[in-house]
């Protein structure tokens, strides 16, 4: 295999001080700013009124009865099951019993759901706007030349990404332009932000995107859910439990377990 001659490009060492460093500093500062902007934009979680609280906690109560039924004796469990099932099926715990059976309200018209969506919008905006600004800033000032050479080899596919704005066909993809440094900063500054702002910072958009992709945990009482259906399902779950108690034969276990 013929040895590809090592490409050398003489660069002005000042590039480092006037491009690489400024881009990095600007990226770090925007991250910090974004963190505080999202802290300021955050709205306090909305206070639930008593009925909504009752709706949620009654469901949770049913779940814990279902989960820990073995701590009870049979009669106390049966009494609880009767009470809970009746209340669930009659909709006694519902926030507004009149709306039973109707399709769930459109989340857009629900003010609670709306505020949640506004919060998400705000976060998205706090991410998109600075990114757009910085990218256009970099493109306007620093495009068209390479600024550094990566210390590791890359395949040809990276050329279009790393050398955006430098249309030279034969150049090694290891040479990168300022816009590629910008992308590297976006993905690589997470640990810097962790160091500066603590673990739960809102500076890096990577973490937020991960969160959006993850499973929708905590959506149990979300706006799209029909609590009536949840109650009915829980009543069914309670009904099929075959009861046993942890107290069955406990004295035998005790006598066997402890030797005097």
């Amino acid at each position, binding site marked *: 295999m013929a040895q590809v001659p090592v490409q050398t490009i003489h660069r002005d060492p000042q590039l480092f001080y006037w491009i690489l460093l400024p881009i990095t500093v600007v990226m770090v500062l925007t991250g*910090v700013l974004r963190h*505080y902007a999202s*802290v300021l934009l955050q709205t306090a979680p909305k*206070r*639930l*009124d*008593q*009925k909504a*609280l*009752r709706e949620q*906690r*009654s469901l*949770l*109560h049913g779940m*814990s*009865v279902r989960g*820990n*039924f*073995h*701590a*009870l*004796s*049979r*009669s*106390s469990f049966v009494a*609880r099951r009767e009470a809970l099932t009746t209340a669930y099926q009659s909709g006694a715990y519902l926030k507004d019993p009149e709306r039973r059976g109707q399709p769930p309200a459109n989340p857009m018209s629900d003010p609670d759901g709306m505020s949640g969506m506004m919060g998400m919008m705000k976060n998205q905006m706090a991410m998109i706007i600075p990114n757009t600004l910085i990218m256009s800033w970099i493109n306007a000032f620093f495009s068209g030349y390479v600024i550094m050479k990566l210390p590791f080899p890359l395949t040809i596919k990276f050329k279009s990404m790393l050398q955006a704005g430098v249309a030279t066909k034969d150049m090694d993809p290891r040479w990168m332009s300022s816009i590629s440094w910008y992308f590297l900063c976006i993905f690589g500054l997470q640990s810097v932000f962790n160091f*500066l*702002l603590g673990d739960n910072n809102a500076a890096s958009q990577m973490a937020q995107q991960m969160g959006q992709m993850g499973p929708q945990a905590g959506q149990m009482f979300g706006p799209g859910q029909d609590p009536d259906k949840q109650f009915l399902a829980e009543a069914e779950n309670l009904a099929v439990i075959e009861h046993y*108690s*942890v*107290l*069955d034969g*406990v*004295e*035998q*276990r*005790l*006598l066997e*377990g*402890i030797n*005097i």
Partner: protein
Amino acid sequence: MAPSLLHPPSQLSPAAALQLSQQAPSVLQNSPSTINSSPLAALLPSSETPDLWIKYENLLLSCLRTGDDHAAHQCLERLVARFGNENVRVMALKGLVKEADSQNNGDLEKVLKEYDQILSDNNTNIPITKRRIALLRSMGRLSDAASSLVHLLGFSPTDAEAWSELADIYLVQGMYQQAIYAMEEVLVLAPNAWNAHSSFANTPCDDQVHARLGEMQYMAATAPGAASGTYEKSMVEALKRFSRSIELCDDYLRGYYGLKLVTKKLLKDAAKPAKDSEEIDFSLPDSKTIERLNELATVKLSEIIRRNTAQERGWRGYDKLEVAAARELLAEEASAAASIER
């Protein structure tokens, strides 16, 4: 274990609480009196930690308990300065300090009115609701406290602390079945909890829910005027609960004490009527098992007493009163046995 300011101090002995509250001047002096919460300050390494606020809160409680009102007010001021007057937890602490400052019943009534005022604005303010209930109870209005608790549990039935308090109030009033029901709720919500009841905190394992339930069942069974039909059921369940509490925690003195009491009583009225076991949750174990359980309890109790008296390593944690009660129980039985032989 040395008392730490990072744990809630409600279970400490008076001496430990005093020790904590004596740390107050140094804690208050060593931490800055105002925390700058501006974004720039957060960039510096010496910013606030959650631990600091937990410390202030616990210090506040200990100081109130030992009568150091000055330090308590200082803690409260700092908490208010950081979290504002509208924070529910701070509101409850403020109420607590006000209650402590009250000189007479009239002042307490005033605090109660304030609580009512707060609750009429925001009826889901759970810390204030609980403060109000505690205040009602300490003013001796037990039935009011119980009905407020029932109302609280009506919209928040997953609150184990409230259920436990309700069980305690019912027990004081002698309403055993209700107390048992509330205690069972605690068990459902926290099946592995050791310490539902804070006043017995110095035993090796804090007061267990199972043992507590066993005690309630026993009280319900032996209470004068208890229905004869429920007697056997309660006794059996008491037996089972005590056994379970020992199973969970070896060498648990209250468990063995209860087991001893129940088995003794069951053996005494051995001529039990043969009942149809359809209605009963648990069938009574045969008399041989009961006898062996009784034996086990006796041996274990005397072992605990012996080792505790000798101050052996690992056996010192028992409450003095509980050990004394166990000794009395054993002595009583021994003398009874001696008199029968004679």
